[in-house]
């Protein structure tokens, strides 16, 4: 009777131990989100006292707001491209590095460097390099006879998104490599030796034995890529400005929300709709959380238990 678990449960003293964490979580996560949600149900422009409660009107407006879908589509395109890139090129380079080549440390540093550099700084360098007027890339292409590639990369609506993707890929490759490398180093050497003894060639060893073991890395990387690409902002902002130039062909949710909440120039704030921007941000967060959950569910199911 004394050890009845119900008795034990009725004491809540253990809650004191989570209190600091809970308080912190409430303060920096829950409270701001609730506050933002409250704000998103108003028509506050961001400056002044003109606020009225409009319920979910902002949200229903988003549902029919074409720029939101356009931006989300661009995010999706970046996500798919980066995902493919990381799971091919990233994986391949990780496999090469895992062979412990000479100067391994050097390669690893060089490949990881973009990750730790500020995207704002590197993005700025990229705009300069890609500039058709002062950039280095076009002259370089011409000097090796690739004149047909020396284009106005960023001002062409069809290639600008490609440039954004390329810079993002360059920047995030380090993550893919590090995550895959960690995964590869967890695959026991003996397993590969066993496969070799069983008659498998290098390719068969990789695809049939090594790769399936990388599924946790695959999952982690896919989810990180999803989150990273759907909240991308700095690359686009620096490369193509607050309007996702040219003509919004690189506009992503990040720039759209920023522009809506804070405006796109210092000359006029007439177009600023802060509350609407907050509503877009919250809706995006919600949709991303749901999709994340789905991705995890699908990919986790494929993972192996050991």
């Amino acid at each position, binding site marked *: 009777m004394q050890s009845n678990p119900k008795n034990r449960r009725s004491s809540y003293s253990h809650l004191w131990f989570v209190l600091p964490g809970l308080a912190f979580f409430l303060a920096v996560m829950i409270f701001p989100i609730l506050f933002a949600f409250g704000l998103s149900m108003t028509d506050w422009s961001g400056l002044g006292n003109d606020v009225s409660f409009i319920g979910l009107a902002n949200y229903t407006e988003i549902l029919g707001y074409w720029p939101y879908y356009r931006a989300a589509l661009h995010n999706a395109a970046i996500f798919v491209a980066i995902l493919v890139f990381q799971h091919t090129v990233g994986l391949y380079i990780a496999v090469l590095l895992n062979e412990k080549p000479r100067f391994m440390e050097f390669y690893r540093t060089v490949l990881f460097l973009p990750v730790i550099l500020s995207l704002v700084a590197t993005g700025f360098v990229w705009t300069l390099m890609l500039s058709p007027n002062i950039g280095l890339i076009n002259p370089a292409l011409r000097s090796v006879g690739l004149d047909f590639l020396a284009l106005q990369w960023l001002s062409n609506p069809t290639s600008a998104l490609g440039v954004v993707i390329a810079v993002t890929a360059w920047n995030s490759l380090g993550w893919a490599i590090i995550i895959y490398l960690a995964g590869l180093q967890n695959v*026991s050497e*003996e397993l590969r030796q066993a496969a*070799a*003894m069983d*008659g498998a060639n290098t390719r068969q060893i990789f695809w049939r*034995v090594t790769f399936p073991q990388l*599924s946790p890395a695959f999952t982690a990387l896919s989810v990180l890529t999803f989150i990273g690409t759907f909240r991308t902002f700095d690359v686009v902002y620096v490369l193509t400005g607050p309007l996702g130039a040219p003509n919004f062909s690189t506009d992503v949710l990040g720039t759209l929300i920023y522009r809506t909440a804070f405006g796109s120039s210092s000359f006029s704030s007439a177009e600023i709709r802060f509350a609407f921007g907050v509503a877009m941000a919250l809706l995006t967060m919600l949709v991303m959380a749901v999709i994340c959950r789905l991705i995890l569910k699908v990919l986790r199911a494929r993972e192996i238990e050991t």
Partner: protein
Amino acid sequence: MASVTLQGLSKVYDGSAKPSLDHLDLEISDGEFLVLVGPSGCGKSTALKLIGGLEDPSGGDVYIGEQRVTDFESRDRDIAMVFQSYALYPHMSVFDNIAFPLQIAKVDKAEISKRVQAVAETLHLSAFLNQRPGRLSGGQRQRVAMGRAIIRQPSVFLMDEPLSNLDAKLRVKMRSEIAQIQRRLDVTTIYVTHDQVEAMTMGDRVAIMREGVLQQVATPDDLYRKPANTFVASFIGSPPMNLFRASLSGTGDKQITLGDQTLTIAPESIEAYPGISAHTGDVILGIRPEDIEDADLSPDTRAGDTITAEVAHLESLGADHMVHLALEAEQVHVGDQPQDQVETPLGPTSGGLCICRFSPRSKARSGDRVRARIATDNLHFFDPATGGALNQ
């Protein structure tokens, strides 16, 4: 089916100064079960990896049958290996694990299924074919690893301590199962272990290694009776052979003096160790515990085959009484390093560690002074400088 020949096989890993395998010469005949034993780190796994083509040798050659395979890829050597860790593919079912070598070889599906079923039957795995290895017990995993090795019907098996992860009971069971399977399939097998019981019970021949150097290859019997050096002598046998510094004297009838007691060496021992006939002075004397008995239980003791000493310590194992006699003589311990012979001078008080296997009928108790009878026809003699047997 094929023999395996190793010629001067050596391996120095990058960044290590000492060879992990030093000029190993070994011939394993077709269908033979050879056990490779030695202490941890002596190069057993290295030897297997070189044979299997998982590492490139720094020198020497590997032949399978008449074929020199030194430069062959693993997959071209027709060898199957059971790894120390089993190395089962965690993402595949037991069926796929066993079938993997056949799938790689593109054997047709029906045939694979038939052969996997048959192997699973032999190994009592039929009930687990659809499970992932993560769900299996140690013994079951071990059998899956065996299954994956035997399904291909290779010409050589390599097994790297396949039983080391199992508990003692299961190990005994699996020991005989493996031995049986090997007999039935009649595949040349090189089996690595550091467990001497496995070595002695399973192998047709046993190769003992130390620090990358082969010490002796012989049948279990020969190893036990004619150890090539103090290392083999102390490695084989449990408890190990007692080794003491002693002094030889006499020319025809030879005597050996151990501390202040003297034994007369029987002719059989001289026959087995002809090297001692011309030798006087320091030697290392080896006496197996089972060659020492309570003199009270032996009616016909003669002078010169008994010693007297105090019982320092007694362990009763039921069938045997392990008696530790405090002998006043310098005891020799053999370390892992060659030339590594540590001598411990012992006084009666510090507890002499000459281990004797007395019959349970012995009345000897701790603290008693007992007379022990030594089988002087089964003494072993080693060169005190090199540790080599004086059998030449």
